[in-house]
């Protein structure tokens, strides 16, 4: 039985980690990270099957996750650390010299939990589909998960991968779009409108469902629903509605906190809205 209150406590703590990490180095991407906190907490604590202690690149017999929009590394690092992939204290090194916690995630420094570098957008879906193909070749019935920004869908490679996955019935993948409607230059609809996103993915041959990414109960429902749709000949896409900056009121409702760090007063304000549930790093 899922203990929702525990997941919510962890989510609150992850939010604190995010704003503290970004504040500490006065750089990084808090907005998208905060919006995806529930998703990451649910994925790593309720949905995916993995062993953090024995992390290895091949991940045979385990579910795999790929972050395509690598700039929201703070939320991933926090959730990975709190899931036991590496010491929680290491969050102190985020974006600093000689750290394994690079500004954008990479395998280069050997951080457990990361299987490919991401940051230059649009590449992660191809990589995730490739990993899913290898799982099929290996007779491995575990799943591949991936997360993508909505602005990232403006990259053409995403649609190459979308076409390939459906045409080849790669049905052991669950991809999710963080549909917060905002990107660096403003609202997505002003910068380059995606049109009918659901219809686009359906037209590309994916099985599409939607969920509210900032409602833990709905995230759990959506991910369970997605899992039940795998193995049926179609790749599965979750369009996840989120609010950029969710959980920190002054960061919500604007694209301006995409890649800006809070100052000391703003940090205090953000932390006052998110209680220290599990202990700060």
């Amino acid at each position, binding site marked *: 039985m899922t203990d929702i209150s525990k997941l919510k406590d962890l989510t609150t703590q992850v939010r604190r980690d995010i704003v503290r990490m970004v504040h500490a180095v006065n750089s990084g991407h808090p907005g998208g990270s905060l919006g995806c906190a529930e998703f990451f907490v649910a994925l790593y604590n309720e949905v995916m099957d993995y062993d953090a202690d024995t992390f290895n690149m091949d991940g*045979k017999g385990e579910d795999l996750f790929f972050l395509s929009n690598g700039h929201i590394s703070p939320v991933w690092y926090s959730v990975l650390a709190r899931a036991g992939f590496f010491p929680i204290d290491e969050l102190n090194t985020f974006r600093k010299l000689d750290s394994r916690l690079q500004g954008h995630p990479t395998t280069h420094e050997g951080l457990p939990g990361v*299987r*490919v570098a*991401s940051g230059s957008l649009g590449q992660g879906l191809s990589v995730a589909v490739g990993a899913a*193909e290898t799982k099929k070749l290996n007779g491995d019935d575990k799943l591949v998960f991936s997360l993508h920004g909505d602005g990232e869908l403006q990259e053409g490679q995403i649609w190459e991968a979308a076409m390939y996955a459906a045409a080849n019935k790669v049905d052991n993948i669950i991809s999710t779009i963080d549909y917060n409607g905002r990107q660096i230059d403003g609202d997505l609809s002003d910068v380059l409108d995606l049109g009918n996103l659901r219809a686009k993915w359906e037209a590309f041959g994916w099985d599409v469902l939607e969920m509210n990414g900032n409602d833990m109960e709905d995230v759990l429902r959506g991910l369970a629903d997605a899992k039940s749709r795998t193995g049926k000949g179609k790749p599965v896409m979750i369009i996840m509605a989120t609010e950029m900056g969710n959980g920190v009121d002054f960061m919500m409702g604007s694209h301006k906190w995409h890649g800006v760090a809070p100052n000391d007063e703003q940090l205090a304000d953000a932390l006052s809205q998110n209680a220290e549930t599990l202990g700060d790093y």
Partner: protein
Amino acid sequence: MENFTVQNTKDTRSGFGEGLLELGRKNPNVVALCADLTGSLKMNAFEDEFPERFFQTGIGEANMMGLAAGMTIGGKIPFTGTFANFSTGRVYDQIRQSIAYSGKNVKICASHAGLTLGEDGATHQILEDIGMMKMLPGMTVINPCDFNQTKAATIAIADHEGPVYLRFGRPKVENFTPVDQKFEIGKALHLITGTDVSIFATGHLVWKSIEAARALAEKGISAEVINIHTIKPLDAEAVIKSAQKTGCVVTAEEHMMNGGLGDSVAQVLARNCPTPLEMVAVNDTFGESGTPAELMTKYGIDTADVIAAAERAVARK
């Protein structure tokens, strides 16, 4: 002077195709991806024999590179196949982030490199690929000279852990290296011993350099010919040793002068033993339509150009 027997004329891409098929038979982890150029890359035999390990991506090279990177996760060894232009320039950022920076064990196999692609013209005649690939940290760059060597190189790179760029070509060329040779990555091959000038050649220019050495001998110039099939990591020891012996150097390649083998050799020489150097390469220009032979002549990378470069180099001693 050393003699070389031309066994036949064959395209280097067919050497890749045969090597890939042999690899498929001996290594179940080898998988192949192709972006709608299966026939051109000679990958049909692999596709026919191992359909479950062959992945047709359609005309989507960026996706192909990402798929290949992902397929390494779980232990597969992906070989991607498309033209050299679409293997590098078109997908540089995908290779950079998802393959090179991520340290993925992907073999990027690139056909129709350089001017000898011929009539299709400059859109397809990439002359910058070696430069782009050798700049990527951790990338191995190989440009074999004939059918037999391309086959051997294809087989050898499967045992090398890490990304590799394997470059080969379209036309039939003299096939003169040993059948079933052992291919050692990073090891320059001494073909002709000489005392007056060192010719370091790669790819299709290796045979032309052998022809040049014969012509030079008739002119009283003793040329040493060394096959640099691996441009990165470069066999610096072989370069220095030969350059110190002969006192002047020629590099020869079917590539742009900027960023090619000549650049790599120049770095080694300048740091270790400054030596007069002449480069046979395409000089800061795009190609055009024409037959391979016409293009090699017009753009100054033919046997006659190697001979002339050697004479210039010797004169500078």
